[in-house]
């Protein structure tokens, strides 16, 4: 069972395990760069199962020196050192100066660093770096899926909260019933779709968008901006359902029509690029996504200004992609830009701000700055709950992300509580087969495993296996 989680990690850890074995009786320094940092604890757990180990959580230079004096070093097979996520000059200096003392200890030392810390070691503790026994890149980009970004929350219309969306939905339903104007019916169907989408009812949204597409094609033919808008909206709904390949097909159709009808330098074309980028981002093709986002941004800057409501969304998406490729500072910069421009357009208490706070939380989680991550998640949770209500997939996503952070901080009860909240909302709003729901089941199972509650862990793993079978 456990293999489901760890196979990839185990494969990558094999050379390290071999090295630990052959280093017995030697004070070899085995440096490891771990990304995402949330995996550090998992690696520690794994090594502890394999070897007689002692774990040193380093905060100050004194911790290094005191631990090196620890008499029990002679009784263990490996010393595992955990370092803070952000490099600190004093720690780097201590490592650099006292490098030889590790060798004198006659026990292999596994040093687990975040990527930024490792870069600083190479640059600022060069003697320690050159003194290393070996270096392992324990990097698992796909594991970064753990912390879910929320795609920028935009809408082609103004709204501030759930109440506005529900009202808009009622208006659209009413207009669909009373209006004799076919154009107005297309608009009402689109409005119904957008409202449902934002309310988290993606199946209903898709149904309305498809009806809008059918009617608009009948009224205007294929090459019309409203037809393109329907294709685009269907693409976004498919995105939300996790059907990315299908989504790209629809989004590219929208782009093709908009390019044909309006030419390259048009805000709608920029929106199409942004939405396609978002899908590639969700598919994990971040370099491709960034290219699309940059294209969108370039057009928006050419045809409008920073006041364009789409611009914060593009910044936010760029932030999410940069976060995924490990360019954390760039990601933070874009999220901050999104927050800044979004504030002027949507205000502070708006789902857009909440999504950005969630994404900032995610990046600080990746950087291992868990307290800061929790602060941002709490802001996101507060605003989402106020604006969308407490039963929205985005609220669930924030709960899930918070759970991951609590888990990384070792607060397993809190983590379990948050995963449970997330799971309840995901199951209710997205159903059991949605990738988000399945992801949260995994997270919850991991937390129970870490807590040592084997029976609950096994129950969830069985559920997971059943879901993976059923939802194929």
């Amino acid at each position: 069972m456990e293999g489901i989680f760890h196979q990839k990690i185990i494969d990558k850890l094999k050379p390290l395990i071999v090295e630990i074995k052959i280093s017995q009786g030697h004070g070899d320094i085995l440096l490891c760069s771990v990304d995402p940092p949330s995996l550090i604890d998992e690696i520690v757990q794994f090594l502890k199962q394999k070897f007689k180990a002692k774990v040193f959580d380093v905060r100050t230079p004194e911790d290094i020196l005191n631990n090196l004096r620890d008499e029990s070093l002679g009784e263990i097979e490996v010393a595992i050192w955990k370092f803070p996520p952000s490099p600190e000059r004093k720690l780097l200096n201590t490592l650099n100066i006292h490098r030889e003392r590790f060798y004198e200890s006659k026990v292999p030392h596994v040093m687990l660093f975040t990527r930024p810390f490792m870069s600083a070691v190479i640059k600022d503790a060069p003697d320690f770096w050159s003194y290393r026994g070996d270096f392992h890149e324990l990097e698992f980009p796909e594991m970064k899926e753990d912390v879910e970004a929320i795609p920028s929350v935009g809408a082609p219309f103004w709204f501030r909260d759930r109440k506005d969306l529900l009202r808009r939905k009622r208006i659209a339903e009413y207009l669909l019933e009373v209006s004799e104007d076919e154009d107005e019916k297309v608009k009402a169907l689109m409005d119904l779709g957008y409202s449902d989408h934002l309310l988290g009812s993606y199946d209903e949204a898709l149904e309305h968008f498809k009806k809008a597409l059918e009617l608009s094609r009948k009224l205007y033919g294929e090459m019309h901006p409203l037809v393109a808008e329907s294709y685009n909206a269907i693409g976004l709904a498919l995105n939300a359902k996790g059907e990315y390949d299908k989504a790209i097909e629809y989004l590219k159709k929208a782009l093709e029509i908009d390019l044909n009808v309006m030419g390259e330098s048009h805000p709608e074309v920029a929106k199409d690029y942004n939405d396609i980028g978002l899908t590639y981002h969700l598919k994990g093709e971040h370099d491709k996504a960034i290219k699309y986002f940059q294209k969108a941004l370039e057009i928006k800057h050419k045809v409008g200004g920073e006041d364009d409501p789409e611009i914060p969304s593009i910044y936010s998406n760029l932030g999410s992609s940069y976060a995924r490729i490990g360019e954390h500072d760039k990601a933070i910069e874009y999220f901050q830009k999104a927050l800044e421009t979004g504030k002027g357009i949507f205000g502070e208490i708006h789902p857009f701000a909440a999504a950005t706070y969630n994404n900032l939380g995610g990046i600080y989680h990746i950087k291992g700055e868990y307290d800061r991550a929790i602060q941002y998640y709490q802001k996101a949770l507060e605003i989402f709950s106020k604006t969308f209500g407490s039963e929205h997939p985005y609220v669930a996503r924030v709960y899930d992300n918070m759970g991951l952070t609590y888990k990384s901080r070792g607060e397993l009860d809190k983590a379990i509580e948050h995963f449970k909240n997330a799971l309840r909302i995901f199951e209710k709003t997205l159903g059991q087969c949605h990738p988000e729901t399945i992801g949260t089941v995994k997270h919850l199972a991991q937390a129970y495993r870490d807590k040592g509650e084997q029976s609950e862990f096994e129950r969830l793993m069985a559920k997971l296996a059943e879901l993976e079978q059923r939802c194929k």
Partner: protein
Amino acid sequence: MPKAYRLEDAYNNFSSEPISSPDEFREFYVERPKPVKSPISTLKISIIHAKKPEKYLFLGFRGSGKSTEINRLLNELDDEKFIKIKFSIKDTLDISDFDYRDFFILLSLQIYNVVKNQKIKVKDDFLEDFERFLYDVTHEAEKIEEEEYGKKKELEGGIDIKVLSAKIGSEAATRTVIRRKLATRIGDLIERTNNLIGEIERKTEKRIIVAVDDLDKLTRGEQSEKFFYTNTGLLLQPKCLVIYTFPIPLAFNPRFENVTGNFSDTFILPQVPVKDRHGREIKENIDFYRAIVERRMDLSLIDGAALKEATLATGKIREFIILLRSSVAIALANGNEKITENDVIEAIEKLRRNFDRELDKVHIKRLIEIHETKDARSESPDDQITRELLFSLSAVEYEDEEGRWADVNPLLHPLIERWKESFTKK
């Protein structure tokens, strides 16, 4: 308001304000001569039979009687079939700091006002949606958050239109907030306004017609042109019948032909010249001006020669009325019992000096050309000089059976020889 038999009473009857009430129409309105007749009757037919929310352009020179004609049209439309809204930018906006976003917000308030004033039972969702949005765009974000999630609920009871309109018209800070927020949300505003329009029309089974007046009051000619040409798409979006009255120089812009096709129809209110392009007096039109005077005061209150002098001096309705009002005041100041020729000449001189003061040499040179060629078409798309002359009424365009022709404002004719001499001397 009744016809005056004393000069003191006549003064108020020569008001430059357009005729508006049915009583005023009955007392003062004079049908225009056939060759320069008002297009209002055609516009009225077009409106009555319109199936869609048509948009009309109503063009005319400043002071040619556009507002009066619009008032007449609205008076004549059946109250049982139409909800009529006349919306004047001059009454509600700061015309020296005019922006399309202020315009659309006030237009939307006019529609909202109909619901409130006529107590129309529209679906609550439409009103709430409109109010929430308007509240959002007229307040700073911090304030909204504090109020929204605190105790205060300003929206209960709806929007105070008078207060908000006054704020938009007079508070630069409010305008700044609105403009910034509406820069990206103008479509949201129009959409909500359209929702209200649709619901009002469904519930009352009447059609809404909005007449937007006084766009020619914008402080500079190019201000109204800019508003028109950069916002054509938005001007077409309200889902009700709309008549936009614009100053006629708008049509002299070479871009006009490209844009005008988007509107359902364009109606032009012609000037009523007193002389034709060859300088011959047009009796029918002179009689029209005489009838205007006769409706407002007994003709015994003005010398025949004075009336003739006044009529031939202008050839534009509002200017003529202002001249008469000024003449009444001068006559009273001179202790006369009736208006004399000298009183009129004094009033004309006063008006003429006002024009002359504003003209520089470039303008004067172009005015001489217009006088000699009888043509005021722009020399190039960038010909601001001609447009300024037409906007200020220093030059006036007319239409006759031979087509468009132009001349210097008759008031300025006596100055033409002097201008020419000054150029020759140099």
